[in-house]
C-alpha cells in the first residue's frame, strides 16, 4: 500500500481541537435526540398498549411511518422538503434564522426516528409484564393511568433496559448521518482532517477509537443502572 503514515497529525493543533469540537457536537446531538426518543417513545409505547382504540391507532401509524423509511431519507426530507411545504415566512425562518438549522433538524429527525423503535421496545416490555398484572390493577380499583404508572411501567422498564441500551448506543452511531446535511460532528471533522492533511487513515482510526470509548462508557453506565434498579427476586436482577 502506497501511504505515508503520520500519527502525530492527530495531536497537532488545530486537528486535535477539531476532533474535540466534533465530539462535543456528536454528544450534544445524541443526547438531545435521545431525550426526544425516550420521552416520545415511551408515550407512544403506552398509546399502543392502551385500551383506547384511538390511541392505539395513533401509535401504530406513527411507528409504521417512521420505522419503515430509512433515516438518511428522513433527514433529507426534513432538511430539504419540509421547509418548502411551510408558508414562505415560516420556511425561511426554518432555513435561515432558526438557531443552528442543520443541527436542530438533525437531532429532531434522529429523535423522531428512534422514538418509533423505543416505542416498540417499551410496548414489548409492557406486554411482557403480563395481562394478569394489568387486570389485577384494574380489579383493585386503579384507573388505567395509575395501572401504567404504578404497575406496568416500573416493571416494563426494568425488563427492557438491555434493548434500550442498544437503542441509546445506536443513536450515537446514527448521529454521524447528520454530516450529510452539514452538521460538523465527529465524523465530519474526521473527513475535514482528511481533506486538509490527506492523512485519512489516521483520522478515521482516531474517530473509531473515540466512538468506541463513548459507547463503551455508555454501556458501563447502563449496566450500573440495570444493577441498581433490579428488583430482588425478579428475572432482571442481573447477577452477572
Amino acid at each position, binding site marked *: *500500500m*502506497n*501511504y*505515508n503514515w503520520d500519527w502525530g497529525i492527530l495531536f497537532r493543533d488545530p486537528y486535535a481541537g477539531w476532533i474535540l469540537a466534533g465530539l462535543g457536537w456528536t454528544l450534544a446531538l445524541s443526547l438531545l435526540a435521545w431525550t426526544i426518543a425516550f420521552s416520545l417513545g415511551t408515550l407512544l409505547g403506552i398509546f399502543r398498549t392502551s385500551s383506547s382504540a384511538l390511541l392505539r391507532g395513533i401509535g401504530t401509524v406513527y411507528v409504521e411511518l417512521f420505522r419503515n423509511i430509512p433515516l438518511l431519507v428522513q433527514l433529507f426530507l426534513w432538511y*430539504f422538503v419540509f*421547509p*418548502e411545504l411551510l408558508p414562505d415566512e415560516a420556511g*425561511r425562518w426554518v*432555513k*435561515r434564522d432558526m438557531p443552528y*438549522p*442543520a443541527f436542530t433538524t438533525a437531532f429532531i429527525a434522529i429523535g423522531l426516528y428512534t422514538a418509533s423503535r423505543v416505542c416498540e421496545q417499551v410496548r414489548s416490555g409492557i406486554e411482557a409484564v403480563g395481562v394478569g398484572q394489568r387486570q389485577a390493577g384494574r380489579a383493585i380499583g386503579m384507573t388505567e393511568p395509575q395501572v401504567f404508572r404504578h404497575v406496568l411501567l416500573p416493571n416494563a422498564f426494568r425488563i427492557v433496559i438491555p434493548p434500550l441500551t442498544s437503542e441509546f448506543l445506536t443513536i450515537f452511531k446514527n448521529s454521524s448521518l447528520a*454530516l*450529510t446535511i*452539514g452538521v*460538523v460532528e465527529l465524523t*465530519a471533522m474526521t*473527513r*475535514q482532517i*482528511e*481533506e*486538509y*492533511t*490527506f492523512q*485519512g*487513515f489516521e483520522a478515521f482510526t482516531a474517530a473509531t477509537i473515540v466512538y468506541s470509548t463513548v459507547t463503551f462508557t455508555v454501556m458501563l453506565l447502563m449496566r450500573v443502572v440495570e444493577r441498581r434498579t433490579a428488583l430482588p427476586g425478579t428475572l432482571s436482577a442481573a447477577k452477572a
Partner: protein
Amino acid sequence: MPMTPRHARPIAHPIILAATTTVLIGAAWSSAALADAGDSPTLARIAERGVVNIGHRETSIPFSYIGDDNEPVGYSIDLCGKFVEAIQAELELDSLEVKYIPVTGQTRIPLLANGTIDMECGSTTNNLTRQKQVEYLPTTFITGTKILSRADSGITEIEDLEGKVIGLSAGTTNEKVIKAAIDELGLDVDVVTVKDHSQGWLSLETDRIDAYGSDDVLLYGLVSRSSDPADYQVTGRYLSFDPYAIMVPRNDSTFERLGRVVFAGLMRSGEMAEIYAQWFEPGPTGIDMPLSDDLAAAFSSQALPE
C-alpha cells in the same frame, strides 16, 4: 556404508532433476509475463486481474459525470480511455475489462492509495500536498475558484458575501481557499458544508444559501443543467489556481511514464485540443468555454518529444 564408485553414480537424482527443470521453466514463464508489466506494481495488478479500475465522479460536469444512459462520461473519462488503450497495448492483452468505480472528493485519495482504483478520472486539482499520497499525469485543464449565486443577488466578489451564507463542498480545495479568504479579509460569512455539488445546487435553489463556491467550470456545468440558467451567475475574481490532472498511484514511475507518453502523444498530434473542443466548445451539456491561452500554453509545453 561404502559409496558407489563415481562412474556408477547417476548424474543427478531423477526427482531433483525434474524439480529443478520445473522451477526453471516456471521462472522463465512468469518472467515472460512480468516483462510486459515491467517493474510496475500497477501494471502487474492490471495484468493479473484482467481489469482496469477507473475512479470517476458522479456530478463533475463535464469532466466526469453520469450521462443520460447511466454510464460515466466526460472529458476526463475520454482521456482515461486513451490511457487504457495504451495499457492494453503495453500488456499485449486481447481484451481489457474496464470497471468504473464512483468516488467522491473524500474517497478518491484513500481508494487510489490502497489500490482499489488504478487511476482517478475526475476533476481533481494537482497540488503539492496531495502529491505526498498520489501522483499526477500532465495537466488537462486549468480553472480556479469562483462564486455562483442568483443573478439578482448582487453578489459579484467575495466581499459581497458579508452577512450572507455560502455553501462549500466537503473535501475540495475551494472549501479551504474560501475559508482562508474569509478569515484573511475578516468577513462575517456563514459557511454551510454540503456533501457534493448537486447538494450545493439544491441548497442554492431552495434559498438555503446565498452563494456556492467551487471551480468555475463546475459552476458553469451546474448552471447549464438547471431549468432556468439565466437566473444564475458565476462571478468574482479567481480565488485560486487549480490545474486538473488524472491521478495515478505513487511510487510507480513506469505506470506514470506510460501515462505521460499517452498525453504527450495527444498534445503533439493536436488530438488533445480536439477532445477539449468536443466537451467545451460547446459541449453536450451546453458549456461554452473556448480554449484559454493558459491552457493552450500548457498543452504545447507538455507536448514532450518521443
